[in-house]
């Protein structure tokens, strides 16, 4: 099967085009860098595979997700490149196209956002563009899918008339340097060595590593230094800048031939929205208001009633009909107890939060797709700068409210490696949706009159601690690195329902899947441990294995206000996934629904110890999936252990302080 690589600048509608072409469920985002992983889809007619690569401005990478593209070109086999080009930003888009043409693979251009360009008075002659670059150009509207059929047909037929890579003349000095490189390297490659030479001289860090692996240091150093010296002498310019300027003048020539401009002094909708959203005085209050509405909708106005309906269904009709069914088929008491007290109590206790979690993910997707996320980075940069990070670090934190795993991954777009590390370490402090069931349970039992404010205080606590620790880490880990911040602010777009639903489902399905696997398995295991004890089966739960295991932790937890074996067991299992804490409690307290569980817990916790417990759950360790992601992303066992260790210490100290000070104050 043919393999087609989809390459383009960030925010050009690349992921939308990918979804239109492949029709698979993919994640669409508007914030530069949402596409951080390599994704493969199959064309609708099943004739070819399409690989969606992260958006890049150039093949010369600055951040980690940008390295993926250069790495892909050099190390993976594929047949064609589909280059998506934003018609309204032709110059910078074509700068990438030139580098791709130099690479020499068959290439076709999908010209997107022609409508946006025309509204700005930019008219592109597609035939002339195709002639100037000697490639096929197909106009598309990636959001609606217009033109995608034509792209698909073209990809399968002859994609290009070009048989050779594009060769720009880079001037005498540079051409001599390229020849020297080729003479040293040899020509036995699956890609043009000329391309490698140009990227090497331009200072492409990935290509540098690639070259340094095969050539001795003295050789590549002298190649580079000689070129630098000669270009400086003849052109009075830095090597990298000189190469850039050469490419740019070629692109300018092309644009001259194909673009007609008319002056339209029109104020765009984006300008009008930005006048409010990024306003000096109301920008930050507006962001806080947006967050407040988001949480109210998720937890109070919309999410809570839906959850209650679901809970009533699990506790009533579902349990009754399952019990009746089990009786009808003559199942034993053991099976009945396993299914009803173990599985339905454990899995159901978590599934009731599906509405809240989907609402939260829906709004996060909306913020991403609309273009507001990049503005959040801008608005919050001053605060983040004060703690040693930059505004872009705020985005992984917000995504972390949904789930810490994509939050940790979103940190890839941060250019400075140390800043990225600190952001990854702090993302788990963001209260993710899986912690919500725990809060909902306790808040309902102990703080019925002040639910929203108590939950909100936990979110604020997480964010505040993250900021304080950021400051602390930036004074220690980050010491030698200056924080930098540049962010592209894409035009606003009204997200499309289809794309929104897809990305909400994409994020939310993980939660449902977890309920079917981890939580299902965990519930069965926990129930068994509570059913079996050293003295036989169906024991009193206080004599079960679970009580023994939890009991080991109880004395340690006593100073925090919840020194019971039940709390110990719940916290231990909560490492699997934080919502398992609720499953465990449902099973331990052996109750049919959330309301009676809350009634029972009032005998074990006081409001103060309940709050202390929630704080501990918020902070104590990232869940298993997050730990695995941190390990994958940092590639370091040391930092992964650190992320667990500091969280445990922090949780213990903060909960201890809350409980002890609270007790002294008489709560």
């Amino acid at each position, binding site marked *: 099967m043919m393999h087609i690589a989809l390459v383009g600048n960030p925010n050009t509608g690349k992921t939308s085009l990918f979804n239109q072409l492949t029709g698979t469920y993919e994640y669409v985002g508007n914030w530069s860098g949402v596409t951080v992983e390599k994704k493969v889809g199959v064309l609708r007619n099943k004739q070819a595979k399409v690989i969606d690569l992260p958006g890049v401005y150039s093949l*010369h990478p600055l951040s980690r997700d940008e390295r993926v593209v250069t790495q892909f070109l050099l190390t993976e086999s594929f047949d064609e490149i589909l280059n998506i080009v934003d018609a309204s930003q032709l110059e910078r888009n074509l700068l990438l196209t030139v580098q791709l043409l130099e690479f020499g693979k068959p290439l076709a251009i999908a010209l997107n956002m022609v409508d946006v360009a025309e509204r700005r008075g930019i008219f592109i002659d597609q035939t002339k563009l195709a002639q100037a670059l000697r490639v096929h150009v197909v106009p598309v509207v990636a959001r609606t899918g217009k033109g995608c059929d034509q792209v698909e047909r073209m990809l399968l037929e002859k994609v290009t008339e070009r048989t050779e890579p594009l060769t720009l003349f880079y001037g005498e000095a540079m051409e001599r340097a390229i020849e020297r490189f080729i003479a040293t390297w040899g020509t036995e490659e699956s890609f043009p060595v000329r391309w490698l030479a140009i990227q090497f001289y331009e200072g492409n860090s990935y290509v540098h590593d690639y070259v340094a692996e095969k050539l001795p240091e003295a050789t590549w150093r002298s190649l580079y230094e000689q070129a630098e010296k000669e270009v400086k002498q003849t052109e009075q310019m830095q090597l990298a800048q000189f190469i850039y300027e050469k490419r740019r003048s070629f692109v300018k020539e092309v644009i001259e031939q194909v673009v007609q401009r008319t002056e339209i002094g029109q104020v*765009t909708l984006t300008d009008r929205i*930005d006048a409010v959203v*990024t306003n000096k005085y109301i920008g930050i209050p507006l962001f806080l208001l947006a967050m407040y509405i988001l949480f109210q909708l998720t937890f109070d106005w919309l999410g809570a009633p839906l959850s209650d309906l679901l809970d009533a269904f699990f506790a009533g009709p579902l349990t009754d009909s399952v019990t009746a069914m089990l009786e009808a088929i003559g199942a034993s008491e053991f099976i009945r107890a396993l299914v009803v007290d173990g599985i339905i109590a454990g899995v159901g206790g978590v599934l009731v939060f599906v509405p809240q979690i989907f609402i939260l993910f829906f709004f996060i997707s909306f913020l991403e797709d609309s273009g507001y996320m990049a503005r959040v980075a801008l608005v919050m940069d001053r605060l983040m700068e004060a703690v040693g990070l930059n505004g872009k670090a705020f985005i992984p934190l917000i995504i972390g409210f949904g789930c810490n795993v994509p939050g940790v991954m979103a940190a890839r777009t941060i*250019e400075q490696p140390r800043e990225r590390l600190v952001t990854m370490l702090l993302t788990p402090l963001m209260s993710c949706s899986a912690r919500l069931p725990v809060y909902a349970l306790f808040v309902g039992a102990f703080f019925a009159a002040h639910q929203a404010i108590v939950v909100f205080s936990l979110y604020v606590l997480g964010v505040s601690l993250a900021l304080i620790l950021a400051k602390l880490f930036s004074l220690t880990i980050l010491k030698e690195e200056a924080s*930098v911040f540049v962010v592209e*602010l894409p035009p606003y777009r009204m997200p499309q329902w289809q794309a929104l639903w897809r990305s909400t489902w994409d994020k939310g399905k993980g939660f449902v899947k977890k309920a079917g696997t981890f939580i299902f398995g965990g519930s069965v295991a926990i129930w068994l441990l509570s059913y079996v004890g050293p003295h036989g089966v169906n024991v009193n739960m206080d004599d079960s294995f679970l009580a023994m295991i939890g009991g080991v932790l109880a004395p340690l937890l006593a100073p925090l206000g919840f020194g019971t074996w039940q709390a110990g067991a719940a916290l231990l299992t909560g490492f699997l996934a934080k919502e398992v804490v609720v499953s465990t409690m449902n099973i331990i307290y052996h109750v049919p629904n959330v309301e009676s569980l809350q009634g029972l817990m009032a005998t074990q916790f006081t409001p103060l110890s309940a709050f202390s417990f929630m704080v501990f759950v918020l902070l104590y360790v990232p869940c298993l999936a997050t730990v695995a992601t941190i390990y994958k992303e940092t590639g370091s066992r040391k930092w992964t252990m650190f992320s667990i260790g500091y969280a445990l210490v922090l949780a213990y100290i903060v909960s201890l302080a809350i409980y002890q000070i609270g007790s002294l104050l008489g709560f």
Partner: protein
Amino acid sequence: MVAMTQLRVGERAKIVDLSQVNDLVKRRLLDMGVTEGTEICLKCTMPLGGPFMIENCGQCVGIRRHEAMSIQVKPL
């Protein structure tokens, strides 16, 4: 020639000198087509020494205040 921070919101200017800017920032700006000779417009500034938002050919970029301070521009 003045520093970009001297511009008023809504004012247009041509970039004259970027040599004092941090290399990483310079590369990113270059990626977005902002370099010496580019015409920009200051769209807005954030309070308490927060970032600046500039526009060039219909695209907006956010940079920090101290970076803006080291960019020399010529008001148009």
